[in-house]
């Protein structure tokens, strides 16, 4: 029995092995033959047939030219060397069954006892020929040490995306590891047969037999499991990630957990999920965006598939723009961020969309009281190209009609957003992703005023794997954020347009020279074009004079490098450097002032024209980033971090919160870039095999400069906007503590944040420190999930926060026409009442059953269970001959129940 097919040699070898077990004496077999003009392969075949000896060889390794040779009762031990003398092959006999023809070099090196033990072991298994068994290395290339290193990847069968945090366990050795952020794992095992067990939430367990002969790689795929697919999507971390990673202030947000949170009117909200994290807060319900560690909304860099999102809220601030059904991973960096990120002071929220299914078409949909959503995904070329598209929209006007406020009944709220992700894998090393996003909002209040705004962006991302150690991610993108503020009636009827465009190029190279060192480097460049304001009349009686400010443009570029170095098992360092360079570029007319450090309308002395392409202002900033982890033991670590951040694009608003039409302002000759030092240090400890995670972080941020506004600043279509701003310094500091139970029928998190934020600006509060709008000393959030079984989940969420600072009247006088004029305190001297709220949700999901094509679930939630009238603001009024009043405006002053139906095809 012999084979000439080199591809099947290993299978044949496996078949042979049982025969190898028996005999040393096979080489004593006497051969008497006369071979004329025959190739060696024929001669070996003939010898095997005549003497019932199995001789295995790779035909390709044998010379093909015919030879003449004769043997007369010569033993095989003499015949074979003669036959093979012109080749580099040797032979090896095993037991009485057969002979292996192998490279002589291998045979000369000799085999260890383990080799033979291995050979013995594998030979005794009946299922050796099982085609599901994966061989690693080749039997003709056994590792002499008796051990081998297996490197592998685990990916999802449907999306071909790497699975992070999958458990790879060798059952017979009781040894296991977790896959890293690229889905990689590495194991050192004895040669021989082992059973791998791979597990990951939401996927079927995979039990895989392997036969290990030498070092090698293995690619494993997991198929979707019998539990809620949502849970599969995001748990993007290893079990001890919080203790192990070096980046302080880093939080991976669990999208599956967010989907279980009680919702406002049934709409899953990523931003509201963020607010459960320590250090993340909001000015109030309905306020746009979120605040991190006392930073303003515009100090957060919000990225979705490399595209920058400038307004992360729908319906003013009641819903977020992210469609949770399409999200793969959410990462929040608070203060301390790797060098590849920049352009904002306070935080980075990096949202990564998932790829569509590469194997089959899937539909997901949901419908709630005010909005509906649907997503579709599937292959374009099976296994190579896929798409995923999602759409959400609202039909909320019927809710407004239920509210007993006439002005609200006559209001309208509408939004939609749409996402498209197209992924094409040319091969294992080259992937192209096209990602697009569009959103639109229309808000009208009582036929008085309104906002019309939206985002459109598109990105092209090219990922290339040069080798196992070198990766590249190149992205190009463009975006346009448009907003129109509408005054709807009378002689002031107008439309105010404010727009922002950018073009972005970014290259990120990852180099893994050793297992202990990873280096990220690259560059980025963003070309901003801001249309800061154009107002035009609306209607026939409007008296508004059309006015349009000149557009502004800037180029923000950076080169960066960041290294993560595991110095020892205990020490892990992440250090980086970002060099950012910013240019504000003409054409632009720039006003000149007597004192250019403090421009005022009164001190205007003229203007200067900068032609197209001419530099108006240039700023360069070196931004070191550093984060350190010291692991005290397997479950405990201490981390520290520092980052220098700079921000060249700011949002201008003198209202309680930013509005959709708040102007984006580029740094220029007068408006300097904001810069911050961020320090943080933390203690992290897990208990009970990472089931319990605890952390305590303290931070300090100083900002120099920052901007505030002169009293009654005029920020609308103002060509001398710099005269309305005053610069100063700011600081924020705090302590964040959290305890989290990650698994079990009852799990959840409790977090407490102590934070302060104040600032000092010339001309405000007599130049003394005063509280910023974001100073909320105490913030507590408690999240409890009760999951008695797969189908039923109960979620409770409680929040408490100190009231934010506000300015109140402390005196009054009466004007000669009877108007009572309040006199306000120094800025932010008082606080609005404290905030607290309890939410509840119950999710009933129908479990997945084999053979079913879809699954459904219901979510019932109550937002603000006990109907607390939390104050968004407190304002004061006094009329002649009447007592002054303090009025509390509660945006959501009642309990809001909602029910949502979810559908998902398998």
């Amino acid at each position: 029995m012999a084979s000439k097919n080199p591809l099947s040699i290993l299978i044949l070898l496996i078949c042979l092995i049982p025969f190898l077990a028996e005999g040393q004496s096979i080489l004593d077999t006497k051969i008497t033959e006369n071979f004329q003009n025959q190739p060696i392969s024929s001669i070996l075949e003939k010898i095997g047939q005549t003497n019932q000896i199995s001789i295995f060889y790779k035909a390709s390794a044998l010379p093909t030219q015919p030879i003449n040779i004769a043997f007369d009762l010569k033993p095989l031990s003499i015949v074979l060397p003669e036959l093979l003398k012109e080749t580099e092959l040797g032979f090896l006999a095993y037991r009485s069954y057969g002979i292996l023809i192998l490279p002589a070099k291998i045979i000369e090196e000799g085999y260890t006892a383990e080799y033979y033990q291995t050979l013995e072991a594998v030979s005794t298994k009946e299922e050796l020929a099982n085609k599901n068994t994966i061989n690693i290395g080749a039997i003709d290339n056994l590792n002499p040490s008796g051990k081998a290193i297996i490197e592998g990847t685990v990916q999802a069968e449907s999306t071909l995306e790497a699975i992070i945090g999958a458990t790879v366990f060798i059952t017979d050795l009781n040894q296991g590891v977790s896959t890293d952020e690229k889905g990689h794992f590495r194991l050192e095992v004895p040669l021989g047969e082992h059973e791998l067990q791979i597990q990951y939430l939401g996927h079927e367990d995979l039990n895989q037999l392997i036969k290990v002969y030498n070092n090698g790689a293995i690619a494993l795929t997991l198929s979707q499991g019998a539990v809620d697919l949502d849970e599969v999507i995001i748990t993007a971390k290893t079990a001890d990630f919080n203790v192990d990673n070096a980046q302080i202030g880093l939080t991976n947000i669990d999208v599956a957990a967010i989907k279980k949170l009680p919702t406002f009117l049934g709409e899953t909200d990523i931003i509201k999920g963020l607010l459960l994290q320590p250090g993340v807060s909001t000015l109030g319900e309905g306020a746009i965006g979120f605040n991190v560690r006392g930073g303003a909304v515009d100090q957060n860099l919000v990225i979705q598939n490399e595209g920058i999102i400038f307004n992360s809220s729908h319906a003013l601030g009641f819903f977020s723009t992210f469609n949770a059904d399409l999200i793969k991973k959410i990462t929040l960096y608070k203060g301390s961020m790797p060098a590849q990120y920049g352009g904002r002071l306070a935080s980075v929220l990096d949202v990564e969309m998932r790829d569509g299914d590469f194997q089959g078409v899937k539909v997901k949909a949901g419908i709630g009281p005010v909005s509906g959503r649907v997503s579709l995904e599937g292959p374009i070329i099976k296994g190579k190209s896929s798409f995923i598209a999602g759409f959400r929209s609202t039909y909320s006007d019927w809710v407004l009609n239920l509210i007993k406020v006439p002005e609200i009944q006559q209001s309208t709220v509408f939004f939609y957003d749409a996402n498209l992700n197209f992924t094409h894998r040319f091969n294992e090393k080259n992937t192209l992703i096209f990602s697009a996003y569009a959103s639109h909002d229309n808000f009208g209040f009582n036929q008085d005023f309104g906002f019309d705004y939206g985002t459109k962006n598109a990105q092209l991302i090219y990922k290339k794997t040069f080798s196992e150690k070198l990766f590249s991610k190149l992205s190009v993108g463009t975006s346009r954020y448009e907003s129109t503020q509408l005054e709807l009636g009378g002689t002031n009827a107008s439309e105010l347009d404010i727009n922002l465009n950018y073009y972005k190029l970014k290259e990120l190279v990852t180099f893994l020279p050793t297992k202990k060192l990873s280096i990220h480097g690259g560059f980025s460049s963003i070309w901003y074009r801001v249309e800061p304001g154009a107002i035009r009349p609306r209607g026939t009686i409007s008296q508004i004079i059309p006015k349009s400010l000149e557009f502004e443009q800037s180029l923000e570029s950076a080169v960066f490098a960041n290294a993560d170095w595991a110095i020892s098992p205990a020490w892990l360092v992440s250090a980086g450097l970002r060099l950012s360079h910013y240019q504000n570029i003409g054409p632009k007319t720039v006003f000149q002032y007597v004192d250019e450090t403090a421009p005022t309308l009164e001190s205007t002395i003229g203007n200067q024209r900068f032609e197209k392409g001419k530099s108006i202002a240039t700023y360069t900033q070196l931004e070191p980033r550093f984060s350190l982890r010291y692991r005290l033991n397997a479950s405990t670590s201490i981390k520290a971090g520092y980052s220098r951040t700079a921000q060249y694009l700011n949002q201008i608003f003198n209202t309680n919160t930013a509005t959709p039409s708040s102007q984006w302002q580029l740094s220029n000759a007068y408006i300097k870039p904001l810069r911050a030092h961020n320090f943080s240090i933390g203690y992290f400890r897990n208990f009970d095999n990472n089931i319990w995670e605890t952390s305590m972080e303290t931070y300090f941020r100083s900002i120099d400069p920052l901007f505030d506004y002169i009293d009654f600043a005029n920020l609308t279509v103002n060509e001398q906007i710099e005269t309305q701003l005053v610069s100063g310094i700011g600081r924020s500091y705090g302590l964040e503590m959290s305890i989290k139970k990650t698994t079990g029928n009852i799990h959840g998190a409790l977090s407490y944040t102590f934070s302060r934020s104040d600032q000092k600006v010339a001309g405000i509060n007599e130049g003394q420190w005063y509280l910023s709008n974001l100073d909320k000393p105490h913030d507590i959030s408690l999240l409890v999930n009760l999951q008695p079984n797969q189908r039923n989940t109960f979620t409770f969420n409680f929040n408490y926060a100190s009231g934010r600072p506000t300015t109140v009247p402390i005196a009054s006088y009466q004007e000669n026409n009877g108007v009572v004029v309040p006199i306000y305190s120094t800025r932010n001297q008082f606080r609005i009442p404290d905030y607290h709220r309890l939410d509840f949700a119950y999710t009933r999901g129908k479990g997945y059953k084999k053979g079913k094509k879809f699954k459904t679930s219901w979510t019932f939630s109550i937002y603000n269970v006990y109907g607390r009238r939390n104050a968004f603001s407190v304002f004061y009024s006094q009329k002649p001959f009447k007592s002054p009043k303090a009025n509390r405006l509660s945006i959501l002053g009642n309990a809001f129940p909602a029910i949502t139906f979810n559908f998902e095809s398998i």
Partner: protein
Amino acid sequence: MNFKIVYKKILLVCILALGYFACLDEIPLANSENTLDRIMIRGKLSYGTPSMVSLAISDLSDFSPSDSPVPIVDAIVLLKSANGEAVAIPMTTIGSYELAIPSNHPTMPIEIGQSYQVTVQLPNNRNYESTLEPLIGVPAIKAVHKNVIERPVLDDLENIESRLFLEITLDTPLELPNNPNRSFLKWEFEGTYRFPESAIATEPLKPVNVCYNFDPLNLDKVVVFDGNQAAQPILNNHFLLEEPLDFRFYRGFYLKIVQQSLSEGAFKYWKELNTIIDRDGSFFETLPAIVRGNFKQLENPAEIVFGYFYTTMEDSIRIFISQDEAEFPTPMCREVADRETFNSQPNLCRNCLLKAGSTVNKPDFWIN
């Protein structure tokens, strides 16, 4: 579990709960005691025949129900022109200083185009001075339009009902004849209505008064306009005022609209004042701040002095809104009632003079 039934029930609960949505209520005032040792000086020079100058000086009252400002008496108040002319303004009532200046005043001619200021010396020898305010002519009102509109409002029981409102709009030039400069304008409003007491049907001999009430209107807003922000030199259909068509319109209503000219500084003051008076706590509201006037203390220029002295010329127009124009509103008091009804009505219905600003003297302008 039948989820269709449960869903319907939950949806019903949801709708009912949302129906009770309410977002604005009154809360206790913060502990906001006035710690300011500051004064308020406000004044106005109104061009006319005669011109009137008035000034009020007081301290500030706390922002609380129980406090009221203390007038400052015996101050020495002077009106000065940019040319150096001056005239003393005597105190006429406690804390109030007024003077009528005829057009032929020998030492203080009041002229359009001239600038004026006031100086104040307090009994404690602190001296205050306003900026010079130019006296600017006012364009004449061209037309006033009255429209009755209907829109939903919340009643006292927080139910939505439809109500009628009087909407006033105005046409006015924004420039003076032969003067290309645009005007800064401010409007004030006064309403006068007739308010008859109830008669008792069975007691016809009881004398019944008919009162006339004068009410300043729109006191929670300041209505101003910058003529430089208008595309055309004339303002057409510019919204001024909206008043509910209530009992005040039952027996006719006179609305007086006063159009005042302002300097740019005064316009800025009144505009900022409106920002802090007309508040609703919404997302879009400009943050409140101290409105600075145009007085300074000469010994301590850093002291914040509240109030403003401004000069103005006024043009006014008075329009009548008849009962039928107001679509026959419901009266507060029945003109003729039986004894039981008479007694159950508010005291005002038995004695209309109890209402502040009431008089039984028929105003000259009331023509029927």
